């Protein structure tokens, strides 16, 4: 409650113990603070937890289950028929959000293919960017969006689920997530490139595709902070004895 603008919610993660304690307490904290809860879970056989109860009874509308394409986090796909579980659709209907959370261990082509073949895509695209996820699977934001497009998502949907939907999920919309007049100028520009792209998953297996998103420039609060094509600056031969071109 001390930093309501910075802290958007509660997270529970990596709990390997038995029972619902971690999830229950997170939701209690979410209730008391009026904030959302993001869940990262483990479903070993001895946890005493199951995905159906978690999604339909424990999680509240607006809570987020991350790492959806990791089959050890939440049972999205039935092991028996390879289809998306009915309770997943039901959970989505009642407002539970599903987040990619790619990371180093949570994006797997077999799971992603089964889910998307059945029409199930994450609500929000996120990276779980950390020290090892940027090395092996290279899970930066555009890489994650490229992967969703490789699974059949349109560019428009990929952008929506990386801007508007996440902004709404953390209750920061329309303050961020749009380019409306009067909004803070946080802007990304990128290219849809044709070429050969090897998209790697957590198991270091690749899917080779011919379309990828390439970063071009980033504006943060009106300031050009990344400009990989030098679009905001003059050619040096035309800049005289320049010192620092603004």
């Amino acid at each position, binding site marked *: 409650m001390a930093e309501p603008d910075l802290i958007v919610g509660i997270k529970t993660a990596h709990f390997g113990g038995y029972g619902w304690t971690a999830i229950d307490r997170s939701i209690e904290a979410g209730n008391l603070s009026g904030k959302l809860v993001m869940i990262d879970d483990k479903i070993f056989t001895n946890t005493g937890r199951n995905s159906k109860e978690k999604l339909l009874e424990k999680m509240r509308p607006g809570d987020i289950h991350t790492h959806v394409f990791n089959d050890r986090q939440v049972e999205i796909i039935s092991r028996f028929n390879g289809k998306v579980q009915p309770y997943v659709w039901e959970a989505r209907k009642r407002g539970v959000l599903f987040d990619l959370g790619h990371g180093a261990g949570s994006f797997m082509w077999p799971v992603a293919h089964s889910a998307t073949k059945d029409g199930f895509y994450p609500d929000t695209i996120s990276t779980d960017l950390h020290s090892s996820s*940027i090395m092996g699977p290279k899970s930066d934001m555009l890489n994650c969006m490229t992967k969703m497009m490789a699974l059949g998502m349109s560019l428009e949907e990929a952008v929506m689920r990386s801007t508007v939907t996440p902004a709404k999920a953390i209750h920061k919309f329309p303050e961020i997530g749009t380019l409306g007049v009067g909004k803070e100028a946080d802007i990304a520009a990128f290219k849809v490139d044709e070429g050969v792209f090897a998209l790697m998953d957590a198991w270091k297996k690749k*899917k080779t595709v011919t379309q990828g998103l390439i970063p071009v420039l980033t504006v943060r609060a009106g300031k050009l902070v990344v400009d990989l094509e030098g679009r905001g600056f003059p050619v*040096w031969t035309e800049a005289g004895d320049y010192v620092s071109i603004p």
Partner: protein
Amino acid sequence: MFRFHNAIARCLAVAALIAAPLCAQPVIYDLILQNGRVLDQKNGRDGHYDIGIVGERIVKVSDHIPAVQGRKVVDLADYVVTPGLIDIHGHFDVGGPSLSINADHNCLRNGVTTAVDAGTSGAKTFERFREHTIENSVTRVLALLNIVGAGMYGSGDGGPENDVKEMDVAAAVAMVKKYPNIIVGIKTAHYQPADWEAVDRAVKAAEDSNTVLMVDFHPKPGREYKDLVLKHMKPGNIHTHFYGRVTPQLDENKKVESYMWEARQRGILFDVGHGSGSLWFRIAVPAIQQGFLPDTISTDIHTSSIMLPHATLTNVMSKFLNMGMTFEQVVECVTKNAAKAIRRYDLAGLAEGDIADIAVLKLERGQFEFLDSGRGKLIGDRNIRAAMTIRAGDVVWDQDGLAAEEWSNVGPYSNFK
């Protein structure tokens, strides 16, 4: 007839059974790199070779290694295979001064397997840097120890980098001697007072420890650059940021000053150290046109230099490629020359027995734009990209998925066990 054929067939089957174990080629190598253009200037190699790796070492370099002998085989046709790149100037003490950035993320992804931290830490702070970062990095992080005991904690008013009392030669020498395999030399930087204390103490520490010296220098009236490179520095010492705006390397007609040539003659090494303020196309292009090339190309990579100038090592190499240096010259600056400059010539090549630190580069053609430290733009037609990095035999970066299998070819896999 039938029986006869049957007999022959049986004989053949038996023969095959006996021959199979004799003919089957055993797996010898953990990793084979095939068909790449190997550019190993230390050993005078430039051509198509196969490289066989066992564990962390290169054990075979030859015209052809049969694929069946490798546990993993990577086809590198259309790629250039070089010794792991060496960046002799970066800032990686992430538990310390705020300019530091993560070594592995910024090195390995750009083909760099050996990175030298240039004076972010000093004798008082090196142990923490070593424990926190150096020992925990996949990148081989070496260090130039700051002559300032505190390291790079500022040269503004009251900053330790201007404080001569912080420059304890004996303490620096003792630390270098304690870690001779990590600390390759001494660094002095950012010293603002118009005297020679910082330089002279750093020179002395390098001499006393028999290591290299890297100097970052801001000339002042009475403390001229010419005297630095002709009198105070010793042969083998490195001046970094020599294309910088504060370095008087060109006269008013953009002609390279005679003392630059003279200093080079007496063995002073000139290092790029791109950073946020030390690569200017308006300076480097005329210098290169007159033949004054860098001895070593380095990044001075830190928090702000990777943003607008985007100065990773492959980016800085690409800038020099497009300013008129050849691809071979550029590679030499970040392998053979860099290894020599830090006296680690063992890291310069790809010979049998060498540690398997390897960069796989792609020389791309098209239109590419580059920004210098002043944000002047250079439009070029070639770009060097690190497609793969191997550190001590492990594939640690594989942007093009060269060592990866297609997911649909490997059968089902699951985290749920």
